[in-house]
């Protein structure tokens, strides 16, 4: 630690202690806000779809049998797409039914330029919050590192049905803080000009969410 940092730290802490000389003892926070959802799974699912559609993302409901076909359809015939190393192969379209597939691995990560040249990315997700329409990526094996779901312009994201919860506290409880977290609620957007919402700035401009039963 440099001399500057040591002395600055000591002084700031001393200033704080001086400022707190009145020794105020605030009451402990009361957490009587909703921490557990009360809606049934069907309502939660409808709420989630309502919210993500509101953000101009598209929503689909598929089963283990139909998910690969849906992903193929969303990708289109010749979309070069990237998937993380741990993405389940069963969920992916077979050879020939979609464009070139590139797997991003820890040993051979794609460069930013390579990621910029692909058309789409397909990932899974850790947990999703219905009340806010938010999907949480937690850098798991089927989600990959942050750059792969950021640079490609089209993000197809699988939300396993059992990972859908109603409230924000429930979602955060399922997050491992030691790995990076990206929460996304629809495509990137800005309201900076006259508060008119524009979907699609720097992050993926197209977001498709597949709820997997």
């Amino acid at each position, binding site marked *: 630690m440099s001399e500057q940092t040591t002395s600055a730290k000591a002084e700031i802490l001393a200033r704080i202690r001086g400022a*707190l000389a009145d020794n105020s003892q605030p009451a402990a926070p009361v957490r009587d806000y909703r921490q557990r959802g009360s809606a049934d799974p069907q309502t939660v699912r409808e709420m989630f779809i309502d919210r993500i559609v509101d953000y101009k993302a598209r929503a689909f409901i598929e089963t283990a049998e139909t998910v690969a076909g849906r992903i193929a359809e969303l990708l289109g015939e010749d979309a070069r797409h990237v998937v993380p190393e741990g993405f389940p192969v069963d969920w992916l379209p077979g050879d020939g039914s979609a464009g070139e597939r590139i797997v991003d691995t820890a040993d051979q990560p794609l460069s930013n330029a390579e990621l910029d040249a692909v058309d789409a990315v397909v990932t899974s997700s850790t947990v999703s919050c219905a009340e806010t329409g938010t999907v949480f990526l937690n850098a798991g094996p089927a989600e990959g590192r942050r750059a792969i779901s950021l640079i490609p312009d089209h993000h197809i994201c699988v939300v396993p049905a059992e990972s859908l919860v109603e409230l924000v506290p429930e979602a955060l409880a399922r997050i491992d803080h030691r790995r990076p977290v990206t929460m996304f609620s629809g495509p990137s957007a800005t309201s900076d000009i006259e508060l008119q919402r524009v979907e699609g700035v720097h992050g993926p401009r197209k977001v498709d969410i597949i709820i997997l039963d």
Partner: protein
Amino acid sequence: MTTVNLGMPTIRHGRGNLFADEPFTSGAARDLKNETLRGNLNFAMRKIRGKRAAVVSEMPDWQQLRAAGSAIKQNVLADLPELLEQFEASFTAAGGHVHWARDADEANAIALRLIQEQGVNEVNKIKSMATQETGLNEYLEAHGITAVETDLAEEIVQLGGDKPSHIVVPAIHRNRDEVRDIFLREIDGVRSDLTSEPTDLADASRERLRAKFFDNRVAVSGANFGIAETGTLTIVESEGNGRMCLTLPDTLITFMGIEKVLPRFADLEVFLQLLPRSSTGERMNPYTSLWTGVTPGDGPQNLHVILIDNGRTATLADEVGRQALHCIRCSACLNVCPVFERAGGHAYGSVYPGPIGAILSPQMTGIEAAANNSLPYASSLCGACYEVCPVKINIPDVLVHLRGADVEARHNARRTAPEAVGVPPATDASASGVSRRARLTAAVRTGAARTVGAVARRVPDQMDALMAAAKTAFAKPGLLSVGERGLPLGKILGGRDGKISFLPGLIGGWTRHRIIDAPPAQSFRHWWKRNRTRTPVRRTPEQRADIAALIEANRGKAAELHARFAAPADDYTRLMAAERTGIQHHDATGAAVADYARGTETSATTASGADDDRMKGERA
């Protein structure tokens, strides 16, 4: 640096872009004439208020979340030394480096050194109030390093050579045509047929910045929250420029005010609900990033956080004013403020405008610095800011407290050296580079300082005399009565139309911006004395109004009123309308008022009306 004794409060004020160069009234008077600004702001503020009210009213536990948010922040301040040390330990254990900065200059110098170590001359920036506060961009520029603002609004402000006017939407004073003109003028190679459509303008920004995201190896960010327990940092954003800056570079430098620390990771569940709904009126902002130190193979491997005081400990020392440090920079208070909506953000001088800026800036700099003593008066004390604040900062209370502090400071200044008031300390003026110094010096030399200085010398004389007279009169009814005999003089001042448009001297403040009605010919006390004998005798129980019957007669009217006022989008207008209606009821019968109040608290109302109900409930 001298040794600091524990327990001996050492107040050190902040530097950087926290100063009003001129009194608020001067800036406001100028900007009020800017019709484009007023039009843009009026439109935008109404829209954002409506959005906020709609998404807040969806939350059945909004008041519980507010209370929890406020209590967590109070505890953060009480435990600040321990939490900061815990944060430092956690962040370091996760592979990051922690730096401490006493003020803006020190924070900027640390950042410059870290950037120079990487050998680059251009860095990307995420929108950050802390770096605006320290004047980092100007500081880096003076040292040959370009800071590229990547948030669209900040980009517009930067390319336009402008200043931000709002915490969350800094270019809100610009309309789409102005943005297009700025882009055409400032972006090399932009398509010449660029339209004013926000979609087109966002595309132009995407094209300009994409290469910079991929190529620049260093990024600078602020932080919405830092978790002591885990060392986790958080950025809440919309466009993905934040994700780009947090993911693609090798080095990430985060500016974080010391008050931004939260004890536990789970505390995010409160603030990630409060912030987006209060700020942009969204259920959730498009992107939130959390990172805990270095993750091999994912994101920057060289992580730094600079913990900044810069006047925060000075604010903390004030037992009433310290709640300003609860602020999570959502801007809800700006969006409901009738003063901000008309004057705009630039009139406040500091990077923190609006109601929160009016209590934060003077505390961080000290009330005597520059023209910051004018900021606590930039409010009608209507209380709307307190009602929407997601962490329950009682802004009106602190404003009144700071007005008191200002009067006291002026008294003290008059007793010692009057010419010192209004002139910022030399160290403050040199805070953030040459241009800042030049501007401040210019402001000091010209009207700003003279005005403040003059007011400081004049106010205690007349104001003290007036207050002393009022004190005596109100203490002695006989004296007050004699004074009230002078009321017919007011009639003469009012002339034929009964209006007074000019008063001299200090009381001229009453007529500077308004025309007032002439006072009545006699005071109420005199009228009462003359008329009370003619009031009816006490009524018998049979003659008295049947309160229960009145309540019954008015049942259901509150719900009906709500149905009528719930339809328009603008919650503020509706609130005002409802209050007016409430007053009419009061005129009719006190019982109806009781019924009205009960109705607003208990009746099931439409979604967009529910928030107003809670506001009323809390005020009651």
